[in-house]
């Protein structure tokens, strides 16, 4: 048994491909999602059409650019040229300050400020308009302190993620995907490899019990997946200042539960595939895509059609993401997600039982 685990580790360390998947992937993913694929608003190019050109309109323009969210896009001299600006992609939003801004403010007339955004990218559009209206209402409040309601009263407030950092949303998803990938895909491939090379026959003829073979194959991946989960957490803590608000111990325990679940799925896949390629394809299509698409990681489950919502109920990652978010972002304890935990436990038991049964049938 000890020999078996040593051998399995040797396989992993000898194979550059699996080493890259095991250790390069988590780091690359976290950094990619963290830095490149952000939903944050930063340095978005906007243009201002100022038809007043008075002291207040200039000050407001200044304030927009000073926020750090926006930078000066190409100058658009007239309202009629806005569409052309969007088409050329030189600006993402145009702020139109109507004529007589300062005088209207003085008389108490509410001067209109139009925010015209390029909504071909709806996420960014809605984000930047929200930001801009926030800045504008802040400005109007500063003009008339204590005078009741501001001119525009947009006040976006983000629960749990006040600075709208998208990495906070991505880390739980990445942990889930990676644990799924490493645990399920790598084990199913490594068991399928033994079958392909014919070494599985020899193992089955040996005095090792099937349970020992499976445990020996799986053990290294439990260890490596666990190291991976810790790496992601450490990385997100130091690189992105992402805190773990709840209990770290509980988070790790839940991770181990999820790893076991993914491993039993991996064994199940390997029992029905005879080559490494089949195992890889199966884990890709049966595990990875649903994990990414149906778990609520990228697309909100609430917005899905009913049928997909029902399907997402049987996706293990869906429940795990809820747990990770609860612990990391909300800092809540087991009392708030015992139901999700129980679902994961039940799924693990079912999959393990099924894969052990399948493994034995194949023997007989």
């Amino acid at each position, binding site marked *: 048994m*000890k*020999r*078996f685990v*040593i*051998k399995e580790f*040797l*396989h992993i360390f*000898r*194979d550059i491909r699996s080493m890259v998947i095991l250790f390069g992937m988590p780091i690359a993913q976290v950094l990619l999602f963290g830095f490149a694929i952000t939903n944050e608003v930063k340095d978005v190019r906007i243009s201002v059409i100022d038809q007043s050109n008075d002291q207040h309109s200039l000050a407001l323009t200044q304030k927009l650019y000073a926020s750090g969210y926006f930078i000066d896009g190409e100058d658009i001299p007239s309202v009629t040229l806005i569409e052309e600006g969007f088409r050329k992609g030189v600006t993402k939003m145009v702020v139109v300050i109507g004529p007589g801004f300062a005088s209207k403010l003085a008389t108490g007339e509410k001067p209109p400020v139009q925010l015209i955004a390029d909504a071909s990218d709806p996420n960014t559009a809605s984000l930047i308009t929200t930001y801009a209206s926030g800045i504008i209402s802040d400005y109007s409040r500063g003009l008339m302190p204590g005078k009741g309601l501001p001119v525009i009263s947009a006040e976006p407030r983000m629960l749990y993620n006040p600075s709208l950092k998208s990495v906070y949303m991505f880390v739980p998803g990445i942990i889930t995907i990676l644990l799924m990938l490493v645990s399920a895909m790598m084990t199913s491939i490594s068991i399928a490899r033994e079958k392909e*090379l*014919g*070494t599985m*026959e*020899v*193992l*089955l*003829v*040996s*005095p*090792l019990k099937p349970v020992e073979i499976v445990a020996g194959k799986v053990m290294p991946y439990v260890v490596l997946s666990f190291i991976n989960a810790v790496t992601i957490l450490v990385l997100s803590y130091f690189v992105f200042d992402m805190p773990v608000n709840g209990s770290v111990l509980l988070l790790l325990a839940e991770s181990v539960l999820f790893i076991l679940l993914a491993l039993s799925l991996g064994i199940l896949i390997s029992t029905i595939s005879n080559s490494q390629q089949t195992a890889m394809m199966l884990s890709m299509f049966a595990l990875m895509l649903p994990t990414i698409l149906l778990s609520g990681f990228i697309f909100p489950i609430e917005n899905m059609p009913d049928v997909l919502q029902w399907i997402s109920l049987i996706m293990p990652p869906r429940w795990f993401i809820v747990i990770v978010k609860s612990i990391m972002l909300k800092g809540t304890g087991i009392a708030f997600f015992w139901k999700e935990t129980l679902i994961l436990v039940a799924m693990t038991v079912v999959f393990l039982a099924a894969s052990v049964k399948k493994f034995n049938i194949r*023997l*007989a």
Partner: protein
Amino acid sequence: MQTSEYAIEAHGLVKKFGNFVANDHLTFDVKKGEIFGFLGANGAGKTTAMKILCGLLLPTSGKIKVAGFDVYTQTNLIKKHIGYMSQKFSLYEDLSIEENFRFYGGIYGLSRKQIAERTSTMLKKLDIEPLRKSLISSLPLGIRQKLAFSVAIIHSPGIVFLDEPTGGVDPITRRQFWEMIYEASEQGITVFVTTHYMDEAEYCNRVSIMVDGRIEALGTPGELKKKFDATDMNQVFLKLARKAG
């Protein structure tokens, strides 16, 4: 059971998959230290019978003992006393010779010292000591095949099962490989070998020929040639196959 002169005793071995009869009342004995050839065309039921003897499959009926143990109830004991080598050679290509020996020795419960000793003797015998640390993937097919055989008998089993061990190997290496088989047999290891090559059948002490799930002929190569009035085993085999067709 220790006193029995037979390594394998099969009486009326039947294996059915649904309505299909893969093995139809096979009866044969293999003496200790004998080289027993198990011949037959593809699909004749060789592999099924071999799996049953190795304790991987349960027979439907029949009285079968391997190394003195019952195949219904003592499969674990059987597995400890047999070695197995498949057509695919079954060594880990990304591990070195030494690591392969250590792994296979380990799963048969040999001690570190025993493994080291046997590895050295076997490598010396094959005259490839300097390659001890090379990966299997870097070795030629012939050496891999001999190593696979060495690994299959590393725990000094009573019986070694060879499933088409010479597939895809050149004639010279096949010849050398059979020398290794003879050597093992001289040490008292019973050799149970399946093969396609009829010339190899001549090397066996006794052979059985399976056709459509039944044993159609059993005896020494000399006896069979006389019985079927043939000059070599190839002719024996063709005559049997024609009769079945």
